[in-house]
């Protein structure tokens, strides 16, 4: 009954049955087979209230949605191009930095490509970059910044792992710090690639102008403190994560609604509603996956999986290669939230036994997912870009492939050099 049930659930999952139903059904099936009464299901879902950290999710998402509605993207492009535009490959760097910042706040839900990419693509082409290169660059950048605070998937990874009561705990703050250098590495490698590949092109660099730079800064004066509030507050430990989320939401509201007046008060209920529908869906998936994880642990599935894998894998090194392959494949098929809730309960106990640090694992996990966003054939950002820029999917495959190799190289470094993630942390 267990096997047949699992098969039916798997098939229906690929038909498009909502993920929360898939996980809920799997948990129910598991408890039924083990003879545990299903009253455990609501008890587990209610555990959502045991995690104060979750407060940060709705609040940060709300801030992200308000920022996406404002003209922050325009200002951000202007300020970065004023300061970085004169460099060789400057405009490409502008794109990377802007997108990374934007994605950290909006959580790589495709908003970056729609809001920022649409601004950057014409600017790049006008600046003399070939169209295919520009297209690839913009699509790739749509998931850059996933490793930076306060990105939703990063918080979610921390929340799920903390629920699992592992022997080697960590704080969300450590996770935020761990993401900095790997994200920087990706931007640096992408920049080197961009400069190298465009070395024969006739690019129109923007001369640095002190007055333009100053003006762009003045335009941004209200938003510049934002990273200080979020990152400074969290990294320094002055705010708890959920407090930083509340303060950020308040600040974003004040700036975009009352100072810049780019988001109308009338529009707020609609924005809140849209943001909460997205967060609500994710939170419910998290809730039912708490039940499912409980079943997995009860049934000692992670142990069994470990014993089985141990029969053909010995070293941490081989394990990491396998992990990368599996995660890349998953990242291309599943969206990031599905992949997080399904894979973490299985992979984290396994990785710990192979001696991988859970913080490092989180960074590896998300870096893989980031590449998965634009991995052919069905990376989500490929479709968003294809829709937004009116280009065929095949064209986008060709455009993004070189960028994918650059990021795969970055991924390899991130995976096999744990020090990159753990450098600022005091973790043995």
């Amino acid at each position: 009954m267990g096997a047949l049930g699992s098969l039916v659930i798997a098939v229906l999952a690929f038909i498009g049955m909502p993920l929360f139903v898939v996980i809920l059904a799997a948990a129910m099936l598991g408890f039924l087979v083990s003879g545990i009464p299903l009253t455990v299901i609501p008890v587990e879902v209610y555990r959502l209230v045991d995690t104060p950290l979750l407060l940060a999710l709705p609040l940060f998402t709300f801030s992200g949605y308000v920022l996406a509605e404002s003209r922050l993207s325009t200002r951000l492009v202007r300020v970065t191009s004023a300061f970085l535009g004169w460099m060789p490959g400057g405009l490409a760097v502008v794109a990377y930095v802007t997108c990374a910042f934007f994605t950290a706040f909006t959580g790589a839900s495709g908003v970056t490509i729609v809001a920022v990419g649409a601004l950057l693509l014409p600017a790049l082409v006008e600046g003399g970059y070939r169209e295919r290169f520009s297209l690839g660059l913009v699509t790739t950048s749509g998931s850059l910044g996933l490793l930076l605070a306060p990105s939703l998937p990063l918080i979610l990874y921390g929340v799920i792992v903390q629920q699992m009561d592992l022997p080697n705990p960590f704080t969300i703050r450590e996770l935020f710090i761990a993401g900095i250098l790997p994200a920087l590495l990706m931007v640096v490698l992408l920049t080197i690639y961009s400069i190298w590949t465009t070395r024969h092109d006739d690019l129109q660099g923007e001369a640095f102008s002190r007055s333009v730079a100053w003006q762009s800064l003045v335009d941004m004066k209200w938003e510049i403190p934002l990273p200080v509030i979020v990152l400074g507050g969290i990294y320094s430990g002055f705010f708890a994560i959920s407090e930083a989320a509340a303060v950020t939401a308040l600040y974003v509201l004040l700036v975009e609604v009352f100072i810049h007046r780019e988001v109308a008060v009338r529009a707020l209920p609609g924005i809140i509603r849209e943001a909460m529908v997205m967060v609500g869906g994710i939170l419910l998936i998290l809730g039912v996956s708490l039940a499912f994880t409980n079943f997995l642990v009860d049934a000692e599935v992670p142990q069994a999986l470990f014993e089985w894998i141990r029969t053909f894998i010995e070293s941490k090194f081989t394990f990491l290669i396998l992990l990368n392959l599996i995660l890349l494949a998953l990242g291309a098929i599943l969206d990031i939230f599905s992949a997080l809730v399904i894979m973490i309960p299985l992979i984290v106990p396994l990785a710990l036994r192979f001696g991988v640090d859970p913080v490092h694992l989180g960074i590896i996990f998300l870096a893989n997912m980031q590449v998965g966003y634009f991995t052919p054939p069905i990376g989500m950002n490929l479709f968003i870009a294809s829709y937004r820029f009116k280009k065929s999917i095949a064209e986008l495959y060709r455009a993004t492939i070189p960028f994918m190799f650059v990021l795969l190289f970055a991924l390899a470094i991130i995976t096999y050099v744990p020090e990159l993630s753990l450098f600022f942390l005091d973790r043995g």
Partner: protein
Amino acid sequence: MKFIRYLHRFEDSLLVLALVSMLVMALLQILLRNFFDSGLLWAESFLRILVLWIAMLGAMVATRERNHISINLLSRVLPPQVYTPLRNLAMLFSVAVCATAAWYSVAYISYEYQDETIAFAGVPVWVCQSILPIGFAVMALRFLIGMVDRAEFWGR
């Protein structure tokens, strides 16, 4: 049908209200703690229960708008005569799963109702939990409507 529209408006408003109260309460707590060295005892519980309500209300609206996260690999690949019956089966399956969850949620909160446990500020726990059976039941109903309407799981 006008009644249904009001019901949808009410549901949306509750969802928006949940976030607004979350923001206001969280800010109030920060203010009280940092400047007055105090805080509301019940606020912490209230905030956490709002997370549950946002989860359920948001998911209810997502079900209404066919906006749930799903994997959806096969809809583009399979021929309609294979895909359509499978999709109907998936809808029916979703109805059954949500209805079962609603049923056991009722059992769960009826224990809490008998125990008369208080969650915060005189509000009993079962009231906070009531969104669980309501949410699952509403989603079951919506999947049922979706099946009758031959709707897709995703709207856009």
